[in-house]
């Protein structure tokens, strides 16, 4: 039996039926859609739009028969479902089956190969999620008036043009990197735009964080997989975009000044910096362009400090 899985809901529905029948993992094959590669695999799963995800409810009891899947596993499986690995759905099924038919406490065993892999994928997604919260950089693209205004490559359209049906969105689907992303702009409202390239298709996982933090602002986060827009009410997902050329934001200059000034040239710890802020993020972090210059100048700045310090002592 082969199942092509596009999102978590689909995996859960198939798995529920198969688990009830007791079908062993060896007898089924879960794959991702052909041609989707490891990246951009999952079209947006609209589940994330509502907080009331009834994850475990669905698996717990069917026909009065308890399946013994913990809420915690389902919550974590939902995250692992956003990993780019092509094996993720198969792994999740296998772990679910083993928990029901072999060992209820399987997930607590850190020396099991599959459990270890599960935790590795979970960690990768959660790290990606954490770094995205940290490294997204918004730029103000100004205030708008007038309809359908196109700002450089960022096409501005009115909110009404994006049809929103309840909590579900209409523009799910595969990325189309050649198209500029449309950004909604309400009249007379400053709009902020960020471009980010996560390793996994985690935008639905991380978008609620930005909605809670910047709820009184209007913003869009664009990624190659998909984009999300917030207009103080609702998260609206659209298809992936290419990196947009954004207009200059004067505050960015102040941020660069701050980054340069808070650096202490008497302490240089490049490895410590890079282990937390890997080079792959640098191209989308405005301050990272300063790193090389700051390091080059550091030793001569420290020399000056010592010279001035010692000169004073001679007085």
């Amino acid at each position, binding site marked *: 039996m082969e199942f092509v899985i596009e999102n978590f809901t689909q995996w859960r529905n198939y798995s529920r039926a198969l688990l009830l029948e007791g079908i062993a993992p060896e007898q089924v094959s879960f794959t991702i859609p052909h041609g989707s590669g490891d990246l951009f695999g999952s079209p947006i799963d609209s589940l994330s739009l509502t907080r009331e995800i009834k994850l475990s409810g669905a698996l717990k009891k069917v026909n009065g028969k308890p399946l013994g899947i913990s809420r915690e596993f389902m919550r974590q499986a939902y995250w692992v479902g956003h990993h780019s690995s092509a094996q993720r759905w198969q792994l999740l099924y296998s772990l679910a089956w083993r928990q029901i038919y072999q060992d209820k406490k399987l997930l607590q065993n850190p020396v099991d190969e599959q459990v270890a892999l599960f935790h590795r994928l979970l960690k990768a997604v959660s790290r990606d999620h954490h770094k995205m919260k940290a490294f997204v950089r*918004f730029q103000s693209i100004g205030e708008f008036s007038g309809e359908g205004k196109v700002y450089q490559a960022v096409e501005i359209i009115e909110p009404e043009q994006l049809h929103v049906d309840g909590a579900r969105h209409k523009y799910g689907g595969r990325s189309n990197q050649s198209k500029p992303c449309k950004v909604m702009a309400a009249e007379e409202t400053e709009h902020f735009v960020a471009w980010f390239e996560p390793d996994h298709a985690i935008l639905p996982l991380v978008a609620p964080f930005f909605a809670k*933090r910047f709820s009184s*602002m209007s913003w869009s986060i664009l990624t190659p997989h998909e984009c999300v827009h917030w207009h103080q009410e609702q998260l609206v997902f659209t298809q992936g975009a290419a990196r947009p050329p954004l207009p200059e934001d004067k505050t960015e200059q*102040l*941020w660069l000044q701050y980054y340069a000034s808070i650096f202490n040239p008497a302490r*240089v710890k490049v490895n*410590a910096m890079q282990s937390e802020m890997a080079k792959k993020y640098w191209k989308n972090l405005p301050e990272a362009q300063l790193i090389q210059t700051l390091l080059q100048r550091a030793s001569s700045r420290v020399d000056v400090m010592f010279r001035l*310090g010692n000169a*004073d002592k001679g007085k």
Partner: protein
Amino acid sequence: MNIQSKLAILADAAKYDASCASSGTVERNSRAGKGVGSTSGGMGICHSYAPDGRCISLLKILLTNFCLFDCAYCINRSSSPVARARFKPEEVVKLTLDFYKRNYIEGLFLSSGIIQSADYTMEQLVEVARSLREDYDFRGYIHLKTIPEAAPELLALAGRYADRLSINIELPQDQSLVLLAPEKNAGTIRQSMGVLKNGIDEYKDNKKSAKAIKSLTPAAGGSRFNHAGPVRRRAKVPIYAPAGQSTQMIVGADSSNDKAILTTAKGLYQGFQMRRVYYSAYSPIQHASKALPAMSPPLMREHRLYQADWLLRFYGFSVQEIAGGATRPNGMLDLDIDPKLAWALANRQLFPININRAPKEQLLRIPGIGAVGAQRIINARRFKVLRFDDLVKCKISVKKVAPFVETLDFNPHLNTLDSHNLRQQLMVSNNKWAPEQLGLF
């Protein structure tokens, strides 16, 4: 002077403060508010990292670097010929909001030189926090560096707006303060830390009683027939620095040894329930005072102190065990190896420790096993008797632990533990965070 020039001076002046934490406060978000901001209730977010390896989580600036005091170790002391600047409170407010909206920061860490008087300075600091909270409904993180000489009423006000308050202990020993910071007074510093502690304790107690009242109110639980929905009876508790207080000690500006530093730290943790004691290796500053050493201490010393601090707080070690006695007779931590390893090498008779039988406290004393690793071992041994390879699966560095553990199929060679070379062998790859040579780029 324009904002950028002020920022250049007042961020530069703030970089000697080690803290940048935005953790440990209550959970908030900006839904149904008119401003921006959220906090997780747990860990904060590090939005960037400077090439000095430090995280950038908060906009860390001074309101002004003009200062009446003349503390020898401080770049902003009155006799220092540095460029001076002063922000207006509304400029700091705007800068914080502009940075926050671009997701550069978690909030503001504001400190200041002392101008006019301690009270006047504190009023200015509080005004920034008040304006952010009241005028702009800012719900991000605020850390205020508190002026110990300011009136208790101002400290109380500061706690109302800030998530975290801090007063620097500055130097590990009171007599050093007399020598290097004549205007400061160790008694006043501790007294103000006590004021903050009382405020924080009172807030915590209020929160507890509010919770208790809530659980006693039947309407809160059984509001089934109340068509207005569940009644929230929780009394509004006046906020006071929900993320507690922290402090900072300068390392290497006076002659205190590590044992003295850690003893002072331990006292601060116990006496004032500090969330963190930060250690800041004294940086050579331009136009340094004659009273100070010409060289900065190795950054590795600062790093070792943080490791030791961790062992004191989370691993059940005492100051004497890691920085005194047989382990370190001179009271200085070993710069080449980490303090737990140094302790283990000085106490080899306690090893090897049996991975399958040792209680958690004992696992935590094995070099190379941290809190997470110890928990993984405990979980794993419920399933099977562990072999040496299982340690790899528990993500433990077998190279580090090999001389100190025994498993079902492994016992360190009897000679290993007795080997005089053991220290030498284990030093390799132990210096991951050593300061590097310049020119890697």
